[in-house]
């Protein structure tokens, strides 16, 4: 397993695109969060907006970079036929998938930590100027939002690896991942019945997963913060399971 990890790590760091994509993810997270924090207002004299969630609101955009990184880590091999070489070197299918998932998610978590810490620093500097308290990681809900954001990105990476393993074509895979993240929430908006709306909202991986960032009015969320992240984790696990089963069942290529 260590050798498989070592090989996947070498692969990921020597392919063009990994560095730029992670850098873009970090820059987008910090820039979006800072820009939105800088436009924060106190409507009707009450500074009641969720300033923490807003500070970390670059994630809905930067997750696209993470998804692309994950899809390319798998789809890039299927697109070129190199998956054959990989499976020749590491014939155990489960090991290949586990190593790939671990390396991609691990690297994403590192970049995500950098991005979240930088966003938190930006929030610390910007928020007092907008009438909100400086963001502090010593605060329980804020720490949960920050740690949850890092986990969120790592889970999106796992989702991407699993879907790409199942779908194989890189273009179709990335479309499937982005569609699941961005369009599933629309399904909730398309139905007006409150019961169905809440169910669909809570099932949408992006909505549910980002619930972990909420620090204001937590009780009004259709799903509690950690349970929301659990929904995303379930999606990622299902995708990895499907990818693993298909990898085992199908011929390579």
């Amino acid at each position, binding site marked *: 397993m260590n*050798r*498989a990890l*070592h*090989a*996947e*790590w*070498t*692969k990921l760091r*020597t*392919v*063009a*695109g990994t560095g730029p994509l992670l850098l873009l993810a970090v820059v987008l997270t910090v820039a979006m969060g800072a820009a939105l924090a800088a436009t924060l207002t106190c409507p009707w004299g009450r500074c009641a907006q969720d300033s923490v969630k807003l500070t970390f609101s670059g994630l809905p955009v930067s997750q696209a970079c993470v998804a692309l990184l994950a899809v390319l880590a798998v789809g*890039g*091999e299927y697109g*070129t*036929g*190199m*998956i*054959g*070489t*990989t*499976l*020749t*070197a*590491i*014939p*155990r299918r489960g090991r290949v998938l586990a190593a790939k998932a671990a390396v991609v998610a691990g690297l994403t978590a590192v970049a995500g930590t950098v991005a979240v810490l930088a966003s938190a620093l930006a929030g610390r500097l910007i928020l007092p100027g907008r009438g909100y308290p400086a963001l502090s990681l010593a605060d329980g809900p804020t720490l949960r939002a920050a740690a949850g954001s890092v986990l969120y990105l790592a889970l999106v990476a796992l989702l991407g690896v699993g879907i790409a393993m199942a779908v194989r074509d890189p273009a179709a895979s990335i479309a499937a991942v982005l569609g699941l993240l961005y369009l599933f929430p629309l399904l909730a908006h398309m139905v007006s019945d409150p019961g169905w709306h809440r169910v669909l909202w809570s099932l949408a991986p992006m909505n549910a997963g980002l619930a972990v960032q909420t620090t204001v009015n937590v009780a009004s969320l259709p799903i509690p913060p950690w349970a929301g992240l659990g929904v995303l984790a379930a999606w990622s696990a299902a995708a990895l399971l499907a990818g693993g089963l298909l990898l085992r069942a199908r*011929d*390579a*290529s």
Partner: protein
Amino acid sequence: MEATIEVTGLRKRFGRTVALDGMTFRVPPGRVTGFVGPNGAGKSTTMRVILGLDAPDEGRALVGGVPYRSLEEPLTRVGALLDAGALQPSRTGRDHLLWLAHSQGLGAARVDEVIGLVGLGGTARRRAGGYSLGMRQRLGIAAALLGDPPVLMLDEPFNGLDPDGIVWIRGLLRSLAAEGRAVLVSSHLMSELEGTAGQLVVAGRGRVVADMGVAELIEAASHDRVTIRTTARSRAMETLAGAGATVAVTGGDTVTASGPPAERVVELLTGGGVPFSEVTAHRATLEEAYMELTRDAVEFRADGAGR
């Protein structure tokens, strides 16, 4: 570990197409085994099944007595070149070898060793996307040699190589076999293997048509046809026919006898006192032998009469 490949009764269909139809053969150590057959005979599929990439519907393939998928450090047991183009274009050739090395617990030193062995040199530090077909073949062979495996399996290694490259690879294959390794080399052109392969597995329509030494194969294809130039044509025919040979007139002063080998023909003629000026034993070329064997197995005929 024993250096062998054993394939037993492999069957596989892709939809309505039968790719493998009872493929069975054994690759012994110490010699180069040519795996030949027309396009679509099932050579590549067989190799993919041996490497555990494709699952057969029936039958099994063992490398050194065990299934490939159960190997812990597979590249130190079997080196394979399947599709030399299967590279991610943005990675350098050296980095490609490096991740493969890491997957087997090998280091960068071994990578630079095989790069030198295949003569890739400084090219290895350029992006693989810019490689010529020949450079990709060399990189693929380097990957196969990486783990110094006792078994080697190369699919169409001559593709895209220039004449120098072909000479180089023939020498390499012979020396690898001489070290006691089992070497399986596929090709759809018999001429590429002439002088290299000691054993031939001829495939056609998903099964083995012939599995024998090169000398035997040529022998078999020659059918012991002997051409005799003689001034006493009818006496020669009588004598030979009397000894059980099938005799035919092929010219004004030539007859052809099938059946007994050339030595026996000379013996018979001399014993019967028949004068002759020349006895020619007909020997088929490897190419001819191959064509004869695969005549029925060719699926796609150039004249389109395969309907």
